[in-house]
């Protein structure tokens, strides 16, 4: 699946290092180049790849290492740690609070998977016993309300939206107010797709944020995105208070490196990943196991903590 290919490339790079007899500057450089190539092929932002490489080189100064140290192990753990740093902003990901109204707002580029993921998240919370509702604040995309309505109906999740109201800010406000009054625990607001080049769309997003006062803003990113990811993610981050990221379409072949770069740009944790079109195709994201899997080495997590 997902990062499998990248994982096996990295594993073989690390293994070839293990087999080399002497670990010198050249072996290390070859290894880092191999890792960089694999990361670039997975759409990790080119500047991040460079930073990662430099970070590892700086940490491992082969000339100054004490004689007794296991160089292979040192390189392995350093690679592991730096990869973790890449996807882990060190912030707990959002959890709704009991006995309180929790408003979650979805934002992201066009077609990233917001509406689908909204429904998945609502379904996820609902199954855990929360009282959940969905609000459609997308008045722009043709069929947006029908899409959310059909998803919600299938999963028996209460929803709010309109065929006639054209102001998404008004709709978002009404929906959140309605479900607040009705005592819902989690209210999820879906918004239209937008991009940084159209400032009016960003303005609208800010207005929605201002009226619904979300407890968490979730930025949805498509796993297949390439080098444009960082600029878009940074712009979203600057405009609204992004709290979490969900990467979608990881059931495909895309390795999600572009989306991972967005995590670095937003400094927000990946909360879930989307792995299919069905409402149950949502998985929790865990940095350590993700990177261990990435490297194809389960025991590295233990190594890193020593």
């Amino acid at each position, binding site marked *: 699946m997902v990062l499998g290919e990248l994982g096996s490339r990295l594993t073989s790079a690390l293994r070839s290092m293990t087999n080399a007899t002497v670990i010198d500057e050249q072996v290390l450089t070859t290894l880092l180049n191999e890792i960089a190539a694999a990361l670039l092929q997975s759409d990790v932002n080119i500047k991040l790849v460079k930073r990662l490489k430099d970070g590892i080189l700086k940490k491992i100064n082969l000339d100054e290492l004490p004689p007794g140290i296991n160089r292979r192990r040192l390189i392995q753990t350093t690679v592991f740690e730096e990869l973790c740093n890449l996807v882990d902003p060190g912030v707990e990901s959002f959890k709704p609070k009991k006995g309180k109204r929790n408003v979650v707002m979805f934002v992201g580029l066009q*077609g*990233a998977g917001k509406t689908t993921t909204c429904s998945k998240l609502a379904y996820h919370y609902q199954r855990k016993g929360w009282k959940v509702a969905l609000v459609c604040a997308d008045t722009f*995309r043709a069929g947006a309300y029908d899409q959310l309505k059909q998803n919600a109906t299938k999963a028996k999740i209460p929803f709010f939206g309109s065929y006639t109201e054209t102001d998404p800010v008004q709709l978002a406000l009404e929906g959140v107010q309605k479900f607040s009054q009705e005592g819902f625990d989690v209210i999820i607001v879906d918004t239209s797709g937008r991009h940084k080049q159209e400032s009016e769309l960003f303005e609208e997003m800010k207005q929605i944020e201002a009226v619904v006062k979300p407890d968490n803003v979730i930025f949805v990113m498509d796993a297949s*995105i390439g080098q444009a*990811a960082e600029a878009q993610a940074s712009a979203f981050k600057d405009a609204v208070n992004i709290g979490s990221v969900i990467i979608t*379409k990881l059931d495909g*072949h895309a390795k999600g490196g572009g989306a991972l770069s967005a995590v670095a740009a937003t400094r927000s944790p990946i909360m879930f990943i989307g792995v299919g079109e069905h409402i149950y195709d949502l998985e929790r994201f865990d940095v350590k196991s993700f990177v261990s899997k990435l490297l194809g080495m389960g025991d590295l997590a233990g190594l890193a903590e020593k």
Partner: protein
Amino acid sequence: IFGFFKGLVGQKVLERADLEPALTAMKEHLINKNVAKDISDSLCASVRESLIGQKVSSFKGLNALVKESMEPALQRILTPKKSTDLLRDILAAKAERRPFSIVFCGVNGVGKSTNLAKICFWLLQNKLRVLIAACDTFRSGAVEQLRVHVRNLKSLDLDGQGSASTNIELYEKGYGKEPALIASDAISYARSQKFDVVLVDTAGRMQDNAPLMQALASLVRVNNPDKVVFVGEALVGNDGVDQLVKFNAALKDYSNVAEPRQIDGIVLTKFDTIDDKVGAALSMTYITGQPILFVGTGQTYTDLKKMNVKAVVQALLR
């Protein structure tokens, strides 16, 4: 005297190692512009081959030299090798009294339905009668999405008559039905009702999803459309290459015919969201050798353009 001077300063023969720094810089430059990594690698490799052994007066201008040799290569890849004149093809079919059919396919959420609607708008402007076939019978709201577009397009007073247009209609059978069958019924209907064009919308699908890819291949085989158009987004990174390779492979492998259909053209969407990171245009044309028929540049009906190859080449090298 001049000859002697020249001999002293330069006339170095370029070797592999001399070129490496400039080529590495170019490779990174292209990757940063969102050209797929493998394609950046092979483009730089071919530039290297063309430059090794050439004589230069100094190694100072190597970056410029690499750029200079890259430019025609990019230009060549991006320049369509066959006609992109859809209207001419449609009129030819019209002369044969048959509807011209176009199937839109691609992965999830790239803009198939929206750009199909934009193309419909453009066809209506050209006084053609268009039937839209709703063959995404899976994704929630897919049929309603097209219904809204058809309603919008009907109410645009394109013919200046002030009345709802009869030049556009939606052919739909709701959800859950067999897409290949709906497409074939739609095409028969278009024939009997004298529509000039049938635009077939399909569900988004991941290129590794075998059952869904099989279903697409079957839709194409059964209906043998005039054009199979791949819709890809300009945002896509390295996955774009894989998408195209596997869509073509599926059309071939699942069709069991001697001469399988392949993707005939590309619609490149969301071009307005990428600034100058225009590399996907290059990756997609490089991999298929097929032309970019249209570029989607926004979310309204008029946001559909022909690609400006020169501008894309310039953006790539800038």
